């Protein structure tokens, strides 16, 4: 074959470009760092972004809400137990209004209905009711007002304090008392302050009505001319400042207190008393009772407990994760870098520790540290079992990188072991470690919830509570007040769900081999 290109004359050649030097073409695309790349990949996964947003919301909830709720975790209200969630915005609707739908017979219904008639604090919502075909009363019972009246013993000082509160605010707290003999005689009824009306017979709680269909109040009263025995000086009288005229034509006043050995016993409206006690006596920022997510069976505000519990759980989990990361990284580095006998021995130790069920570790620790703080026990237990995973991850990374050329080069240049470990190999493992660290957090919260539920760990001391404690409290009253368990459960589910979604995305994002795979 003839070679056509054999003898091309020299002058036929010319430079491709006019210049002598040929440069690489300048990159027209923008350089992307590893983190940018990972972030872009992460953002592509819609589920993970949603997960991340939910996590942020939950964390913000845990951080911010405890500052804005007036209640404390350690606050227990003896009367507002299992109170339903209420929000003033929804008060006029039949949702989130702190009321429950009830269907009762006449006796129960009138008991609640009469409460509203006396004070205007309607236990039957808006005093609205219907009678259904079976003759039952269908109404919404307001759990904030259903306590109605209670008997409270005041010292004289407290008594005067309430009166000055009444005069200042114009809100009636104290209502006329009812003599012992006029109350229904059954023991539980005699202590019940809600019987202010005449009932049929001594042992019946059935209401007697007058001709107009109104209840007949049986307040304790005295002649206007008689000396006031109850030292009542407030102008807040339901009969008016001038008293009322009885059937016999005399002017009477109601008695608002019964003198006891230590002071006076009064009949107060608990809703008003709660408001008075918190806004006037304690001045702790609580006004009228309002529990956004209701209260537990022991009268704790669920919103406060949940937020504080979540804050504690997050802080605790992050704390444990950081300590685990620190210790596991050191342990794994030594194992992985030196290898050989050191690795073998250290691996066996880690294996044995990993094989002990967490439950047994916690139990043994708890038995040995019985008097110490439960938080410390839990912390130690999670630490003892948690660092092994971190150590394992680090070890794998060390095995992968320690024989690579750049490490060899560093060694040849005289780098010390410590420098090679920290500066040359460890940074490679950091990404994976931080990811696994983040994914450990929900499982730790979940496991803490389990332990609190099982009663092995009891974190609810003082101002600390945890999500698990709340769930186990909720399960006890699942039949009567399912909402108590609902909110902590919802929190836990949301947390797990968002971390699952987030974790999937994070794993993909930090995996460079997936680059461009989705396109």
């Amino acid at each position: 074959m003839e070679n056509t290109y054999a003898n091309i004359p020299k002058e036929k050649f010319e430079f491709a470009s006019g210049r002598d030097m040929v440069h690489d073409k300048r990159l027209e695309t923008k350089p992307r760092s590893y983190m940018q790349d990972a972030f872009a990949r992460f953002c592509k996964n819609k589920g993970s972004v949603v997960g991340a947003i939910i996590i942020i919301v939950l964390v913000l909830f845990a951080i911010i809400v405890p500052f804005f709720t007036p209640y404390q975790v350690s606050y227990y209200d003896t009367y507002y137990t299992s109170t339903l969630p209420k929000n003033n915005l929804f008060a006029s609707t039949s949702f989130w209004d702190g009321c429950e739908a009830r269907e009762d017979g006449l006796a129960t219904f009138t008991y609640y209905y009469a409460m509203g008639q006396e004070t205007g604090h309607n236990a039957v919502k808006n005093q609205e009711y219907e009678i259904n075909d079976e003759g039952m009363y269908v109404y919404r019972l307001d759990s904030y007002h259903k306590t109605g009246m209670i008997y409270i013993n005041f010292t004289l000082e407290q008594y005067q304090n309430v009166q000055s509160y009444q005069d200042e605010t114009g809100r009636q707290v104290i209502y006329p008392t009812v003599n012992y003999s006029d109350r229904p005689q059954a023991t539980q009824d005699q202590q019940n302050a809600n019987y202010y009306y005449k009932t049929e017979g001594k042992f019946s709680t059935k209401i007697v009505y007058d001709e107009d269909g109104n209840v007949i109040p049986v307040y304790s009263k005295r002649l206007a001319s008689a000396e006031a025995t109850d030292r009542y000086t407030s102008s807040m009288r339901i009969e008016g400042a001038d008293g009322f005229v009885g059937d016999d034509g005399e002017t009477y006043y109601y008695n608002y207190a019964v003198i006891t050995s230590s002071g006076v016993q009064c009949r107060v409206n608990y809703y008003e008393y709660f408001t008075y006690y918190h806004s006037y006596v304690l001045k702790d920022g609580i006004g009228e009772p309002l529990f956004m997510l209701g209260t537990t069976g022991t009268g704790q505000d669920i919103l406060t407990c949940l937020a504080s519990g979540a804050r504690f759980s997050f802080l605790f989990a992050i704390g444990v994760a950081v300590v685990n990361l620190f210790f596991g990284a050191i342990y794994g580095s030594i194992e992985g870098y030196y290898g050989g006998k050191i690795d073998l021995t250290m691996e066996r130790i880690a294996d044995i520790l990993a094989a002990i069920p967490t439950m047994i570790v916690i139990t043994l620790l708890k038995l040995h540290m019985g008097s110490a703080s439960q938080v410390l026990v839990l912390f130690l237990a999670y630490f003892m079992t948690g660092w092994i995973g971190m150590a394992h991850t680090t070890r794998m990374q060390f095995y992968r990188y320690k024989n690579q050329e750049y490490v060899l080069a560093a060694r040849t240049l005289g780098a010390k072991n410590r420098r090679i470990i920290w500066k040359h190999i460890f940074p490679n493992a950091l990404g994976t470690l931080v990811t696994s660290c983040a994914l450990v957090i929900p499982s730790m919260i979940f496991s803490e919830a389990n332990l609190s539920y099982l009663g092995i760990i009891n974190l609810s001391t003082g101002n600390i509570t945890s999500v698990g404690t709340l769930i186990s409290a909720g399960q006890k009253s699942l039949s009567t007040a399912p909402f108590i368990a609902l909110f902590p459960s919802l929190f836990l589910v949301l947390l797990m769900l968002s971390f699952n979604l987030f974790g999937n995305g994070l794993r993909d994002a930090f995996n460079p081999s997936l680059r461009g795979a989705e396109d």
Partner: protein
Amino acid sequence: MYMFKYVLKRLGLVLFTFCVIMVMCFVLIKLLPIVVTVQIGQDANIIYRQLEARGYICNVVYNSTTKLWTYDTVPIMTQLGYYLQRIFVNGDFGIGVSMAEYRNQPVWDVFMEKLPPTVLINTYSTIIGVPIGLGLGILAALKKNKWQDQVISVGIILLISVPSIVMGLIIQYIFCFRLRWFPLTMMSGFDYFTWPMFRSMLPAVFSLCLGSIAGYARFTRAELTEVLTSEFMLLARTKGLTRGQATLRHALRNAMVPIFPMILSEFVLVLSGSLVIESMFSIPGVGRLYLDSITYQDYDFFMLLSGFYTLVGLLAGIITDISYGFIDPRIRMGAR
């Protein structure tokens, strides 16, 4: 021969780990003060003599003026010797001391009595869970990126995210309180195979198996999609196999290699059960016994049950590893 050696080596390691853990537990338990609770109607003398006979204390003296019992403790390693001797010579794991229900009963007998409910509930859950989980996973993998897959995947992520504690609560509230389909807690008694008993177990079984269904389905889907896209599947189709044949004979078989060990190890883990579910549905199982032994500090029970839980965990791990070797010809042959 290689497999035999491998299995032997793994078993030896497990045994070693187990022994170390148990000795650690024993020592840690014996470091605690001995709880001697003399209930009304019990003779303190008998209790102290019993402890002495078991080799835990010696030189028991009753001081009649101060009305106090004094004793010296035996060195822990000697106690361990007695303990092991009793177990291996007499098969005696000790007797209950502080739990009122099981006082003076042999620990082993109580344990065997408590095992059936736990095992039954978890077996039912596995029997229900495995076929459904595998089925859903296979369906999702075959219909990848179609609506069936989307629905199943969303279901999986939801089910996996609901912790068993919340799942239990939901099931208890809806099916037991509201609909009243099942009793609230498990029936008492020992007739485990009657219909009412089975029905009372169902809520617990459902709470357990919903989570594992999601787990199986997710794993199967991931494995099967990977196998389905591999090249031998293409070859199988080119050979003239129908899609069904190819999936059944080639894809499923290969996908089963990692799935089967997982099911096996789950089957071993069912023995240990779920403490949360057991306590939520009042199942008179091992979990309850374990929690009680912690609350009342009954050390003989605690030792036996700790050993049980540790052993189950270790066995699950080793069975997974070994079954990999037996199932997968590539691993088995590759070793030679």
